[in-house]
C-alpha cells in the first residue's frame, strides 16, 4: 500500500505544451498604447 501511495505522489512527467499563437493587437487611434487581445 505504502509503495502505491509513493507511486501516486510522484509527479508525472510534463507533456510538452503546444506553443501559444501570438495574438493580434488592438490599438486606439490617437493613442500609441498597444493592447493585446484577450487581456
Amino acid at each position, binding site marked *: 500500500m505504502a509503495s502505491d501511495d509513493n507511486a501516486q505522489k510522484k509527479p508525472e512527467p510534463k507533456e510538452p505544451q*503546444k506553443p501559444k*499563437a*501570438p495574438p*493580434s*493587437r*488592438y*490599438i486606439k*487611434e*490617437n493613442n500609441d498604447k498597444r493592447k493585446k487581445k484577450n487581456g
Partner: protein
Amino acid sequence: MLISCQNMDFLTHNQKEYIRELERRNELRRSLTLPIGLSILFGGAIYSLMAGFSWSDEPVLAVYAFVTASVPASVFWASAVLFLIKSHIGYEYAYMPTAKELEEYKEKLVDFYKEIAQEDISDQDVRDHLRKEYADNAHHNCLNNNTKAAELHKANVRFVGVLLFLGLMSLISISQPFLEVFYG
C-alpha cells in the same frame, strides 16, 4: 463561372479583406480634412455675422428673422462638430502580430513537433492562425469603418443645414439697409 469553396484560398481572401479595411480607414482619415476645414470656416462665419449684426438698431422683424436663422445654423454647426469628433475619436483598430512574433511562433512549433515526435505541421498551424486572425481583424476593422463613415455622413448632412441657414443669415444682414428704408 462558379468557384467551389474547396478551391478557395481563404487565407488570401481574408488577408485582402484585412488590407482593404486598413486602406478604407486611411481614406476615412483623409476625408476628415475637408469637414474640419468647413467647421472652422462656418463657425467663423456664424460668429462674424452674429457679432456684426446691429441688434438694437434693426427692426424687430429683422431681429426675429435673424434669430430664426442663426439658432438652427448654430445648432447644426454644433451637432456637425460633435459628429466629426465622434467619427474621429475612440476607435480601436485590430492589427496582426508582427513578423518577428510569427517567426518565433513558427520556431516554437517546429521544436514542439520534434519533441513529441510527430509529423511537422507547423506551416499549417501558422496558416490556420493567420487565416483566423485576418478574418477577426478584418471584421473588427470593418465595423469600425462603417460606424466612422456613418458619423462622417451625419456631420456632412448637418453642414448642408449650416450652409442653408448661414445663407439666410447673410441675406438678412445684407438686406439691412433695405429693411431700414422699408420700415423707416
